[in-house]
């Protein structure tokens, strides 16, 4: 799942940075690590830039599960996106 990847990416990025900071990595390995690190940071940034979400309610219809958009009982409430 993409979301598991995010945490992994962030951890990997952290690992790469720490390893590079230790400073005993050969040059070509360092460059590879750098490239990988930049890729990871871009991936994380993209995931963080997403702003949309879906809120669904799970309903049982004719014994099958169906997802329907959830509209809260108080529709006049501001959605968090509006606040932000």
């Amino acid at each position, binding site marked *: 799942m993409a979301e598991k990847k995010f945490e992994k990416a962030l951890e990997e990025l952290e690992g790469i940075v720490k390893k590079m900071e230790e400073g005993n990595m050969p040059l070509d390995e360092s460059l590879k690590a750098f490239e990988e690190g*930049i890729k990871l940071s871009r991936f994380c940034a993209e995931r963080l830039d997403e702003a949309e979400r879906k809120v669904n309610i799970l309903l049982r219809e004719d014994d099958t599960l169906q997802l329907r958009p959830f509209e809260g009982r108080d529709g006049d409430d501001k959605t968090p996106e509006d606040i932000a």
Partner: protein
Amino acid sequence: MEKILTVTQLTQAIKYFLETSFDVIWVTGEISNLRRPASGHVYCTLKDEASQIRAVAFKGTAEKIGFDLEDGMKIICRGRLNVYPARGEYQLIIDTAEPRGLGALQMAFDQLKGRLEEEGLFDPSHKKKIPFLPGKIGIVTSPSGAAIRDILNITGRRFPAVDIIIAPAAVQGTQAPPEICAAIADLNAIGVDVIIVARGGGSLEDLFCFNDERVARSIYASRVPIMSAVGHEIDFTIADFVADLRAPTPSAAAELVVPDRRDLIERTKRLRSRLIHTCDMLLRELKTRLVFVAEGLRDPRGRIADLRMGLDDRYARLTGGMRHILAIRESSFLPIRRILMRLTPVAQVRELRRRSEDMKGELETRVRFFIDTLRDRLQRDMSLLDTLSPLSVLRRGFGIVRLPDGTIVRDVRMLTVNGSVSVKVSSGNFKARVTTISQEHDDGGKEI
């Protein structure tokens, strides 16, 4: 004579009488002499201060009543009377029972908690990790409650891009436990990354469905990690103990289930700049080392530079030496130069110049004297001249008459009538016209 009854006949009569007279009855008392044979039925004695009665809860009932009957426990139970002819005993057959008095729910809670704990349902080793950033969050709760609103608000604020699936379930009352269990199973089936089982605050009884054994087992069985978020911070339910993580409130669950996006952005940025900085440092260091190594390589260009420098050095030494030789040569001319200096005619020239200056002064004095003498004589001659000048004659009243062409009129015959003349007198000139001419020897008839 009275009818003689057999024991069986009497017992049957008693059985009929008792079982029909006490069809369904409610009894309260304290349990004692409790026994649990392998059959699963529970036998005990119900007693109060003065009396006692045998009682039994058959296996099915004993499992259903929600708590374990124990010695010393005070209960209210519903049942019917039963006579057991083989032993000539009567007993109460319990079909439901509830603990009596304050702390009754607490007792049931403690019992269930103890039992599930022993069974390992709360075992930390069984707890699943809550994902760091879930993509889909399942929420088991009432779709109209405050809990769902809080969770939606807070998760939306912290991390907008996480999908949420609400699995609706009653969160109080008898229908709540089966609905909660079904919702958990449904979310497992549909696939989410984490489940929050949530309910806002309420009375102990309101929250009691989260102390239900079925709910506990369904949480335990879930493949998806479950976070419990029931009631207020002080409320602990069985669900909290089984859950993979207990959040004190639904709002707290929302805070725990997604990280704050701004923190993550900050963290990512910081890592990125550390990465760039480190790489930059590394390259710089390598460059320095490279320069070092390159020097060690004795680049031919380096040799040329060396040679060139050597050449420069030699050239400098050469010119320096030359200059030195010249200086030595120069010094050998010094005595001759000194003699020449002594023979120089500068002094005579200076003497001659001084004398010439003196003479020049004398000459100037004499010339000035001569000029002054001349100037005095001129002065004298000028005043003599003045007495002889026509101008002094004019001052005595004479005038000089001239024709327009400037010719002085000495004879009237030079004049014509109506001709114009100019007359100069001592203080100026004036013009006049000739009106009459009389050729006499006397006064010229000049009129104005």
